[in-house]
């Protein structure tokens, strides 16, 4: 094995974020360039460059943090690097231009922990985020990694472990919120020698990427949690099921597994305690329904991922008919902290029924897109305005969608809702895996409902008729509305069909699929009515209900729109007012993006101009 340079040998460390977001923004090029520049300045012996897992502040990627001072550089470009190395690393003068500036009127914030986005977070699961190299087990161990495993294996009986997890009040982070300790206990009590545990990393909810981030940034915490769970339930084989869309997570997980095995923390006779446990990685193949536990089991068995009737629950009859315990990535990553710091500490965080912290992915129309870990019970307002920095371009907040396609939209007047399993369910939504999609005044709620329904309809496995046909009819009805063909009575029809699908579907996918429709109907009924009665889309989104027009008073006759129009729908001569031929217009929206800000003459109107 190549000798790794010891961390204390360096004067400074540059931590380059290598989460998927930053990598897509060329973080590896930045790293390479930094190393080259540092070598050029002959600083290679003093300064180390390390890639870390996701920092969470994806909006500002690629991110470089200089430690030990904690100086936070953002939106790095290759051309900034010589200047950064020269000024900060050589002369010791941090570069203000590359720091985070909250708004044009404010001063740059040099330190990471002073940035509003990071300040209000409470890190348990993401405790190691951005501070260690996920491909190096020594660094995880250096931050007290595998200590909990040692405690669990040498000083605790399986019963004690389960008791501790039960006392912590940890509930499943995959969405449903079933108490984890109880789930373990049920599986442990099942007769039979062969049992399995599974880590569910089939994070299919669009707009949620916390599981990916945990697997990418700190794979060992999941492995450690699973091994502790395996000991508690007396299991010797585990599986991690990861989406195929997450290649980086799979790669890092595999590296972590082989390193853990090399160190005797996995495999035969772990830590000399005579306990054997082995983990295998299974890759999904792009089916949302496989996040459902029985479908996931079928998929691991190499079959078509269709759910089956429960009971029997997987804890009785799971993988290959054996008792199986399934938990989500985030749930497993909580376990080591519960064991090492105790149930009492864990249960002191959060609300009465929801303990600990939860990771949310804050995306959509929000200034600070990224991953945030916050204690349960925090309000939506705190997350969106304090951490998220509010809505871009001074637009008005409209709704936040939680729980992915199974969740619902929560309107503005409920912003002070504390976030826990129960209150979200009461509001008609659900915790889900933790996606939080913020929508502003430019988002059409009917279109959002149609989007989610279309998603669940496409992902429905087709096994049970209520889901297969119910979702299809709902999409059809919603589609008609967005095309201006809505009819009187459509809303009642939607409501009745939604209730039916909810009550009679086989698995969670169908049972929760109507949530987006039901919540938008509950909170945004006026938008539905505008679509049906006035053929008008208040948010100016639904293509068939809007028209692009050029304002005669504002048009400067610059011809830019006419040159860019792909369907030759715009006519007009230089310095003269342009017009859009509504018959030819395909409503692609290019004209509105190219019209110079000084004219700002292209407008959307609804109902559509005939």
């Amino acid at each position, binding site marked *: 094995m190549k000798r790794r340079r010891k961390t204390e040998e360096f004067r400074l460390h540059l931590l380059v974020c290598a989460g*998927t*977001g930053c990598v*897509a*923004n060329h973080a590896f090029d930045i790293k390479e360039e930094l190393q080259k520049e540092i070598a050029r300045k002959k600083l290679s012996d003093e300064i180390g460059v390390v890639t870390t897992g996701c920092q969470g502040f*994806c*909006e500002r*990627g690629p991110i470089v943090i200089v430690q030990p001072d904690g100086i936070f550089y953002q939106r790095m470009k290759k051309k900034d690097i010589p200047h950064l190395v020269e000024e900060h690393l050589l002369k010791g003068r941090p570069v203000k231009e590359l720091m985070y500036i909250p708004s044009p009127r404010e001063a740059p914030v040099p330190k990471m922990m002073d940035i509003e986005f990071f300040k209000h977070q409470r890190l348990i699961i993401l405790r190691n985020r951005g501070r260690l190299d996920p491909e190096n087990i020594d660094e995880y161990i250096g931050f007290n990694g595998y200590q909990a495993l040692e405690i669990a294996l040498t000083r605790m009986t399986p019963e004690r472990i389960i008791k501790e997890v039960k006392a912590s009040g940890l509930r499943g982070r995959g969405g449903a919120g079933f108490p984890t300790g109880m789930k373990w206990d049920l599986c442990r009590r099942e007769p039979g020698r062969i049992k399995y545990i599974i880590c569910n990393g089939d*994070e*299919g*909810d*669009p*707009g*949620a*990427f916390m599981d*990916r981030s945990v697997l990418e940034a700190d794979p060992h915490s999941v492995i450690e949690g699973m091994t502790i769970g395996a000991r508690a339930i007396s299991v010797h084989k585990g599986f991690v099921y990861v989406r*195929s*869309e*997450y290649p980086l997570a799979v790669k890092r997980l595999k590296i972590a597994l082989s390193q853990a095995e090399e160190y005797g923390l996995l495999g035969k006779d772990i830590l000399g305690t005579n306990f054997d446990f082995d983990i295998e990685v*299974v*890759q*999904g*193949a*792009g*089916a*949302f329904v496989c996040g459902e536990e029985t479908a996931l089991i079928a*998929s*691991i*068995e*190499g*079959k*078509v*991922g269709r759910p089956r009737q429960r009971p029997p629950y997987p804890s009785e009859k799971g993988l290959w008919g054996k008792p199986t315990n399934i938990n989500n990535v985030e749930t497993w990553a909580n376990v080591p902290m519960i064991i090492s710091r105790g149930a009492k500490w864990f249960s002191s965080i959060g609300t009465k029924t929801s303990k600990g912290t939860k990771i949310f*992915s804050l*995306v*959509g*129309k929000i200034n600070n*897109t*990224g991953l945030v870990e916050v204690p349960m019970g925090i309000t939506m307002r705190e997350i969106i305005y304090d951490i998220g920095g509010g809505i871009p371009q001074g637009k008005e907040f409209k709704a936040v*969608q939680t729980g*992915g396609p199974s969740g619902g939209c929560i309107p503005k007047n409920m912003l002070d809702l504390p976030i826990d399993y129960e209150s979200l369910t009461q509001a008609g939504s659900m915790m889900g895996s933790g*996606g939080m*999609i913020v*929508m502003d005044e430019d*988002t059409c709620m009917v279109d*959002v409902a149609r*989007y*989610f329904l279309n*998603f669940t309809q496409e*992902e429905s*496995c087709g096994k049970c008729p209520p889901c297969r046909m119910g979702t299809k009819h709902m999409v059809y009805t919603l589609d008609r509305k967005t095309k201006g063909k809505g009819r009187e009575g459509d809303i009642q029809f939607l409501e009745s069909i939604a209730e039916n699908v909810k009550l009679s579907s086989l698995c969670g996918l169908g049972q929760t699929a109507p949530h987006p429709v039901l919540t938008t109907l509950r909170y945004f009924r006026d938008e539905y009515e505008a679509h049906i009665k006035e053929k008008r889309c208040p948010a100016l989104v639904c293509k068939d209900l809007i028209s692009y027009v050029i304002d005669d008073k504002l048009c400067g006759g610059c011809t830019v729109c006419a040159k*860019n129009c*792909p369907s030759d729908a715009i006519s007009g001569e230089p310095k003269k007012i342009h017009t859009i031929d509504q018959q030819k217009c*395909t409503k*692609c*929206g*290019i004209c509105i*993006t*190219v019209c110079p800000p000084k004219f700002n003459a292209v407008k959307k109107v609804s109902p559509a101009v005939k």
Partner: protein
Amino acid sequence: MKINAKDLSRIVSKYHDEKSSLIAVLQDVQEEYHWLPPEALRFVSEKLCIPLIDVYSVATFYRAFSLTPRGEHVVTVCLGTACHVRGAPLVLDRIRNRLRVEPGCTTGDGKFTLESVNCLGACALAPIVVVDGKYHGQTTVKKAAQIIEEYHTKRPKKRVTRRRKK
């Protein structure tokens, strides 16, 4: 389509001819050929002793598998929620009109395959268009067309068949 029985044997034997590894085998086959040729499905079915109808059912159930050859460039538009609210449908429309092809299909000249994906988990870059594994973040309607033009003239990289260590 010519398939190489030796390559396929190597893939299947990597998984010890186990039935439960069907999905993994198909994934490897797809990586080799960029789609699932019918001959390969037949071969896998025989080797793993799984009825062809079941292999076909798995191959059509999962979104990651393609039963038609794919183009030189694969254009993937993310339609996750974050991308959706930031205008991905317009971007998809633009690319669809430009290539004159529906998502899931390949252009007549075999140059582009247009695909959509539910979420890539890189929502900060929304809306995202991925071409041959390269991410193009914050795509606008205008940028979308430019991205396609860029690849229109570009020659595809030579596909290197990776030799796996045994």
